[in-house]
């Protein structure tokens, strides 16, 4: 019984990782329809920002404040990666809206440039980040071991999601974003500057990739090519959830996380991956547009 409970927790925790990774993409690909292959590399940049923060703290800040580096790294990663995203949007993607295949190639190229940039600055080998002491170890309840780092990630995902929902559905700016994404021409007719909205939205999607990169340092490796580990998962979640639907992304991530964990528990890791992909293919036959599909009156 306790092992089933443990697996449910593991499933949710894998789901939260998937959701963190996919949240940025749900905006850039889901809302804006840019096939953003650089998403994985933006995550990678977020991880390196965290590493950089750690190096700065080790060198310049008294030791007793060391643990704070991680808390500070989250907003810093968001801002820096959002900045890079904005630059990317301004120089490349802006010219490619409505041309998905071109944007696929261009963002892929941009991703390679980011990888090479990091390799040049930090070198090809992986770097190590030390988890802050308050996230090491695990919480023991009823014979279950719940790692603090996983609990923290689940919490962070909830905070990020909450923030995003409030922004999109409760603010004036968010309403503009939704208007532009649903019907660009109509929105511009209403006097909304679609340029400004595009730029901000893309930056926000990139910023969430940065946050994902930052938290992934708690569980995984940090190297110039880690983006490749996550990009497929991210697209999988967004497609299963339904392009353009944030609720779908949430349910998709949790569903894939839980199913994957149980398949893996019953068989093994390689087989688990095979089964989950088989399930997704079958699911997309049944619902080609994902769990939730958005109906709009615009002609795609």
């Amino acid at each position, binding site marked *: 019984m306790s*092992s089933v409970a*443990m*697996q449910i927790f*593991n499933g949710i*925790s*894998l789901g939260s*990782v998937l959701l963190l990774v996919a949240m940025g993409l749900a905006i850039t690909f889901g809302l804006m329809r840019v096939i953003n292959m650089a998403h994985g590399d933006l995550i990678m940049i977020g991880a390196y920002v965290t590493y950089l923060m750690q190096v700065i703290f080790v060198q310049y800040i008294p030791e007793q404040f060391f643990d704070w580096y991680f808390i500070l790294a989250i907003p810093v990663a968001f801002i820096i990666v959002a900045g890079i995203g904005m630059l990317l949007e301004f*120089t*490349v993607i802006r*010219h490619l809206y409505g041309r998905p295949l071109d944007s696929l190639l261009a963002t892929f190229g941009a991703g390679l*440039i980011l990888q*090479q*940039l990091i390799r*040049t600055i930090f070198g*090809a*080998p*992986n*770097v*190590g*980040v*030390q*988890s802050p002491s308050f*996230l*090491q*170890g*695990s919480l*023991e309840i009823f014979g279950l*071991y719940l*790692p*603090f*780092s*996983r609990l923290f990630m689940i919490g962070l995902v909830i905070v990020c999601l909450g923030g995003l929902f409030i922004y999109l559905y409760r603010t004036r700016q968010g309403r503009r974003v939704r208007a532009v994404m649903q019907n660009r021409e109509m929105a511009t007719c209403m006097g909304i500057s679609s340029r400004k909205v595009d730029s901000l939205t893309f930056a926000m999607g990139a910023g969430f990739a940065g946050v994902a990169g930052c938290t992934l340092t*708690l*569980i*995984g*490796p*940090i*190297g110039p*090519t*880690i983006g*490749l*580990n*996550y990009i497929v998962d991210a697209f999988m979640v967004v497609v299963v959830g339904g392009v353009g639907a944030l609720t779908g992304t949430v349910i998709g991530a949790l569903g894939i996380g839980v199913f994957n*964990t149980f398949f*893996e*528990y019953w068989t*093994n*890791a*390689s087989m*688990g*991956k095979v089964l989950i992909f088989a399930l997704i293919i079958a699911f997309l036959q049944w619902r080609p547009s994902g769990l939730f599909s958005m109906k709009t009156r615009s002609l795609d």
Partner: protein
Amino acid sequence: MKKYKWGIALFSAAFILSACATGEEAADTGFGEASAGEDEQSESAEDNEEVVVDEDSIPVGLLHSLSGTMAISETSVRDAVMLAIDEINEDGGVLGKEIVPIVEDGASDEPVFSERASKLLQQDDVAAIFGTWTSASRQAVLPVVEEHNGLLFYPVQYEGMESSPNIFYNGAAPNQQIVPAVEWLFDNVGDSFFLLGSDYVFPRTANQIIQAQLDDLGGEVVREEYTPMGHTDYNTIISHIRDTDPDVIFNTLNGDSNVAFFNQLADAGITSDDVTVLSVSVAEEEIRGIGAEVLEGHLASWNYYQTTDTPENETFVSNFKEAYGEDRVTGDPIEAAYFMVYLWAQAVEEAGSTETDAVREAAAGITFDAPNGPVEIDGDNQHVYKTVRIGEVQSDGQFEEVWNSGEPVKPDPFLENYDWAEAIQ
């Protein structure tokens, strides 16, 4: 239209910038000329004329992945080979001639490896190739060196079950790494083993060997798990570890997955006091990426550590750091790559020529005082006698040796001297 041009201009500027920066980095490594040349070589064959090969020099090939996923590990090995070549040249070279390295990039891609190998042998007529890392890339080069009767010096531990007359294997065979480690763990730690590996040929063969050996010793494999390359979520595996409660985890994971596995194991509150993890693919270089604090107390089995206490190693480590920077670390494959150049050079001196058959004949029984201790080429299978060492990770990311075999162990790639290994092919 104007905007497009602007974007393109910005992009090309970025490209040029990154290209310049790469060039600078290469120059910093201390072998500026050779490193700077290699990019051009891999782009077009004509540029090879830069490498002057005349009667007073002997060309050798360096074939490693300098790009792609394996570049992380293989560039250091390339550096070690370059260091050895430089040292030998400073001492007057081989047969009074200078060794000229010709560097090729295998690009972490097997077809590229075999194509570059035939280019080195046919076009550059190299005396020997130093290179490859993964078993897949070695096996891609194998038919090429056999066809052209060339020589390949291979620096990495591997799964055994191979012995080509055209390859010298300088890494550990299973009986110089895995078998003694299992025996030591069985005697000193416990008898229930959890086998965890990446899903490809080396871990699967290694675990077959371990299973057979444990059956013979009277130990038990409680579970065998494989994860795809690049796997990053080990929570389910950790649940299995809790369920089966093994004494030992024998870890044959390769690459990035180690970072995820060790981090999540530590987060789950499982330390080296609860269960000992012994790894065969985690060396000093990898520890820097994983973080010493989560590895502390866990074990590894190799033939060499940066802390190995020999006078040769002291010189080797200080020369390596001097050439490539204080923050660099050495490790088992790096050391093997270094001493194998010396072994080749001695065999050539002995043979009086660089001709493959003569060198192979002369190589049998050649000895050298390597940083890990004395090594000797075994004429029967072209592997190397090496000392086996088990080390424990310390908080500074270095190993402290807890056991060694006392003397170099005879290589036995087909495990012929072990009755229990009969069924393994």
